[in-house]
């Protein structure tokens, strides 16, 4: 409290930011890595689960229910439930992050695949598509907009959660928040720790949107009509 007052009277040392750009950049890259790994692994697992849920309908309920329960566990709690097994490591952080992505990704992937119009699938079967080709060439491409919508939500969520995992790994932009809190609410660090992930999330969200537009030209033109 006294520190905050001191800063208020003496002005905030914004120059800390320009003086520490290297550190900030390093933390940003680390933040991206932690996010990226979680997304890639989460997406791969979600795809497997989604395909299983589509092929064997009975699995859909249990899969989404489990993912849903995990999603409702407060992130703090989840990380500390895992810690006794895997320690205060990046692995612990990643396991938690991956688990959090699953619900959104599975739900959207299944919804996307389910949303492929029945007439399109029937026409494809009627023309002699085998089951695998039907999935790869028709169902999956048509589900892309909904799948990417899920990826965007999951990515934004994960970028935020990576900030929290700094408590375990002391990595990523979140560590500036921890530092800032410990140094009598040193405002420039708190700002970097809070604003950084926000900007990062916005940027990644925008990139994914661009990616979707690029690979699904048909949906954009359809929407423009």
């Amino acid at each position, binding site marked *: 409290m006294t520190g905050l007052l001191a800063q208020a009277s003496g002005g905030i040392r914004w120059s800390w930011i320009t003086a520490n750009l290297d550190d900030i950049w390093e933390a940003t890259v680390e933040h991206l890595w932690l996010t990226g790994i979680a997304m890639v692994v989460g997406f791969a697992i979600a795809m497997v689960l989604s395909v299983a849920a589509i092929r064997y309908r009975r699995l859909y309920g249990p899969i989404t229910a489990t993912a849903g329960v995990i999603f409702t566990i407060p992130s703090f709690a989840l990380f500390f439930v895992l810690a006794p097994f895997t320690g205060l490591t990046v692995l612990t952080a990643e396991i938690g992050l991956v688990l959090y992505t699953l619900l959104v990704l599975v739900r959207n992937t299944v919804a996307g695949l389910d949303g492929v119009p029945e007439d399109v699938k029937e*026409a494809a079967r009627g023309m002699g598509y085998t089951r695998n080709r039907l999935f790869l060439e*028709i169902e999956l491409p*048509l589900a892309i907009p909904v799948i990417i919508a899920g990826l965007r939500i999951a990515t934004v969520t994960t970028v935020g959660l990576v900030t929290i995992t700094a408590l375990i790994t002391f990595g990523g932009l979140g560590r500036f928040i921890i530092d800032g809190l410990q140094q009598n609410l040193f405002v420039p660090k708190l700002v970097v720790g809070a604003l950084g992930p926000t900007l990062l999330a916005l940027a990644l969200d925008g990139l994914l949107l661009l990616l979707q537009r690029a690979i699904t030209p048909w949906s954009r033109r359809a929407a423009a009509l």
Partner: protein
Amino acid sequence: MIELDRATKVFPGTAAPAVDALTLDVPAGEIVVLVGPSGCGKTTTLKMINRIVEPTGGTIRVDGVDVRRQEPHVLRRNIGYVIQQVGLFPHRTIARNIATVPRLLGWDADRTTARVDELMVTMGLDPDMGARYPSELSGGQRQRVGVARALAADPPVLLMDEPFGAVDPIVRGRLQGELLDLQARLRKTIVFVTHDIDEALRLGDRIAILNVGGRLEQYATPEEILREPATPFVEEFLGGERGLRRLALRTVGDLGDLGIGNCVQADATVEEAKRRAAESGERWIGILDGDRLRGWAWVSDLDGSRHAGDVDTTLFRVALSVDATLREAIDGLVRSRVGVAVVLGEDQRYEGMVTLDRLAQAIVS
């Protein structure tokens, strides 16, 4: 070509069969139309042929081979399939949609492209359309693409489930005409499903009228069905105006040579023109310039002129093509001021006139 032998489908969890022991032969090169009330099993019957629906009893042979002895995807690549909702692939351009089966069959790129271009022309699709997506086409254009896609690998057999169901009556009529033109050249074996009896009568070489449970009420040519409905069900299904509908099966061209009709050449004398009109029992006369029909004039207006062509003429309001049906001819007669329907051939060449007498002769014979 396609033989259904006691083909049966009982869907799981239902007591009554959707199609119960249906026996039907579809001759090669003909259009057979399955028609009947909603839920009578038309779609189910059609889908049993390409095994989208697996029969639970009986056998179905295409070209002599039991469909169950072939891998479904192999069987299907040899059978064109058009569904009511069209089912174009939204993420693929029109050209890519049409190329579907050739690509599945592994045709090389040049051959595929050439085939796609050819089909777009055949189906009256603007070549620019090839690069568009299905959402950028009108309903009628999509239906055409659906048919083009089914024809792409030139399959001998075509299954069409209400392919023109989703378009307005005018476009539907045009697409029906195009299908008939196409069929005149391609001679495919086509099974066509509709619940519109007029569409069935227009397109079918033979019509199978189905009752609930896929019960075959009558299987015959349109002419026979209209002349002698086999059961009260068929009679009711055909609805009223059976006589008029029969007239819809014959064209003006079927009447044969119509003669010159109540007409003279423009350089004929007024006396000649009057004599001609009197012979026809009319108070007007048509005036020709060679093989062009100029119009008509009242006989009473001819007085004081030397040649028939000297007087002002009125255009005929109704002209029919040789392809027009006799039903359309009657409609033309009724709408015409002078009680005849003019028939024009290629390049508007005058072919003659249809009169009520002439029609009466044809109807009675």
